[in-house]
């Protein structure tokens, strides 16, 4: 029998176009997703050299990063408008499918790929966006690339890539009630730091990972890049297959069953070994809140802001001091004492239907706290429509939330959805970097449930005190 292999090695080996001693492999790319911000210079590069797009049908474009989420018929920002128009012209010129701002399929690139069934197990998927790791939830090898590489993939449908090391993150046991996939990935990064994945592709395994829904798996894989990893993925299983059944771009009928069997065979073999394995126990994880300026700066909601005085150089004492200062907090301050002025439920981490449903459960019948601005930005127009069909918009609007159109929005504040300097936001996104949500803005990363609860109370609270989360 052949050597047991991980899914990472299986996908890699299946995609090698060319290999040569002392060189990276030339890897075939199955699916290339593009958006308005990281593609214009790539198309310009093609034009300058008179090159074509090799496989336009393997390329799919949308507009998400800078689109307004309100009043979409008039785009006021001339530079954003130009960027969107440029994408449209480029897609027309090179024959690429585009879900533009008025298209019913429009949405955050990492939300619509899975939704349309473009994302499938075993595929190599790239996009000029670091959170491409999201698609790894399906057992695809998906990673972010720069604009030069976007141009390279457009021209050649391939990329030179050094074979990554493999890293297993094993999550044993079960997550507690009210503890979400977001808390899981934050706790992993909190425990192992923002660099543990560098040079590696992570495979998440273990009981708690198997029990996650597809949408929850996407939340986990999404933040692999926040651990420094090139990609993060989860071996396909029945959950994966059932999610994909009936999606627009997957085969139908008998062909689907055959394809599904192939997908299942990609799962890591029993006994396969990794370059490294890390273990974490799910039952020890509590709802998390970040207090600082990178995602490893997180603690359980019942915890406190750390005290740099008791830290060593090794623990990045200077970095922690700077972060506390930037965030306008005090050492040893209770997390539950931190007031919030903005709440953002959205982003490719947490803007899918199940995220909005769980947040709505908390919000139902309550009111947003005085002085808090809370917005919900569905990940795609499809999610928006589904949510409206279930009446979620009414729940949010009645409570005093704003209900927007799909886009990246306040995750990176390239459009008008900005947190003003010095103000604080409970956000379901993935990055709490300085200035991420606006110059001087202070971001606290949390799950959708925790964000919803913060909106109602005007400060962070342990969502587990809400009866409706019990059992869910």
């Amino acid at each position, binding site marked *: 029998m052949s050597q047991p292999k991980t899914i990472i090695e299986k996908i890699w080996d299946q995609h090698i*176009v*060319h290999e040569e001693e*002392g*060189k*990276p492999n*030339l890897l*075939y790319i199955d699916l290339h997703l593009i958006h308005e*911000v*990281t593609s*214009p*210079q790539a198309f*310009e590069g093609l034009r300058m*050299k008179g*090159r074509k797009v*090799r496989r336009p049908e393997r390329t799919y474009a949308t507009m998400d*990063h*800078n689109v307004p989420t309100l009043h979409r018929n008039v785009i006021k*920002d001339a*530079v*954003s408008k*130009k*960027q969107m128009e*440029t994408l449209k012209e480029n897609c027309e010129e090179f024959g690429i499918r585009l879900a533009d701002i008025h298209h019913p399929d429009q949405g955050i690139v990492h939300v619509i790929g899975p939704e349309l069934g473009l994302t499938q197990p075993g595929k190599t998927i790239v996009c*000029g*966006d*670091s959170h491409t790791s999201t698609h790894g939830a399906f057992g695809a090898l998906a990673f*972010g*690339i*720069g*604009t*030069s*590489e976007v*141009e*390279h993939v457009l*021209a*050649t*449908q*391939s990329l*030179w890539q050094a074979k990554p090391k493999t890293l297993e993150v094993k999550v044993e046991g079960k997550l507690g009630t009210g503890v979400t996939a977001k808390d899981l990935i934050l706790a992993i990064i909190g425990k192992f730091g*923002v*660099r543990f994945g*560098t*040079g590696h592709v992570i495979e998440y395994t273990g009981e708690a990972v198997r029990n996650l829904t597809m949408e929850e798996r996407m939340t986990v894989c999404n933040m692999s890049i926040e651990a*420094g990893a*090139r990609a993060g993925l989860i071996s396909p299983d029945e959950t994966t297959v059932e999610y994909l059944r009936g999606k627009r771009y997957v085969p139908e009928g008998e062909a689907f069953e055959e394809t599904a069997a192939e997908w299942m065979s990609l799962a890591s073999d029993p006994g396969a070994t990794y370059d490294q394995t890390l273990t974490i126990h799910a039952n020890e994880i509590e709802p998390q809140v970040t207090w600082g300026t*990178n995602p490893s700066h997180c603690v359980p909601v019942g915890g406190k802001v750390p005290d740099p005085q008791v830290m060593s150089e090794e623990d*990045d004492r200077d*970095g922690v001091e*700077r972060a506390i200062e930037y965030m306008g907090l005090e050492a040893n301050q209770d997390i539950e004492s931190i007031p919030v002025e903005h709440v953002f439920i959205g982003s490719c981490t947490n803007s899918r239907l199940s995220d909005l449903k769980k947040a709505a459960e908390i919000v139902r019948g309550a009111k947003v706290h005085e002085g808090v601005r809370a917005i919900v930005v569905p990940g795609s127009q499809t999610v928006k429509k589904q949510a409206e069909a279930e009446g979620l918009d009414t729940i949010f609007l009645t409570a005093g939330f704003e209900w927007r159109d799909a886009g990246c929005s306040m995750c*990176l*504040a*390239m459009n008008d959805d900005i947190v003003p*300097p010095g103000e604080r936001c409970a956000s379901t996104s993935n*990055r709490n*970097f*300085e*200035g*991420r949500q606006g*110059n*001087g803005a202070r971001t606290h990363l949390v799950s959708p449930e925790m964000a919803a609860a913060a909106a109602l109370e005007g400060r962070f609270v342990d969502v587990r005190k809400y009866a409706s989360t019990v059992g869910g």
Partner: protein
Amino acid sequence: MEPLRKHTGLVFPLNRSNVDTDQIIPKQFLKRIERQGFGQFLFFNWRFHDDGTPREDFSLNDSKYDEASVLVGGENFGCGSSREHAPWAIQDYGFKVVIAPSFADIFYNNCFKNGILPIELPKSVTDQMIKEAEDHQYELTVDLENQVVRDDSREVSFDIQSYHKEMLLNGWDEIAVTLTYQEKIDQFEQKTS
């Protein structure tokens, strides 16, 4: 792309770890559709007050670093988004070499595509370089051919993949190189479709 073989330049020290791409170039400047002109926005929020005046507490604004072309930073340099605008800004500002104890993967790769040489050196060495450059005008010579970095008193060698090295030494257009494998890509597609 311009080849890069040997470079001598003044060091700008940036003693911070986890410098992310949002810091290197904030998103409000990502809307341009050109590759050039991003240098003016490099480290924008650290360099300028809200009203656009330079901040005195950020040393890049210190005239002694005006001519700097080698950036020495901390661990995990360039983490965060995949935006190539980050290396574009670094290069456009005038940096040719970035030295750090560790880099984020995508940023590291993006550097090579733009003729910037990223060099990983042990933290003890970069700490020393940062200290020197904070104290006085400090120059480094980087010799890619021989894979060494040297100052007046010593020399350290560094690792680099031969593929990356050749790309910079020759200033290759990577797409042109790949297109010489077109037949293999055709074969791959025939085999798998």
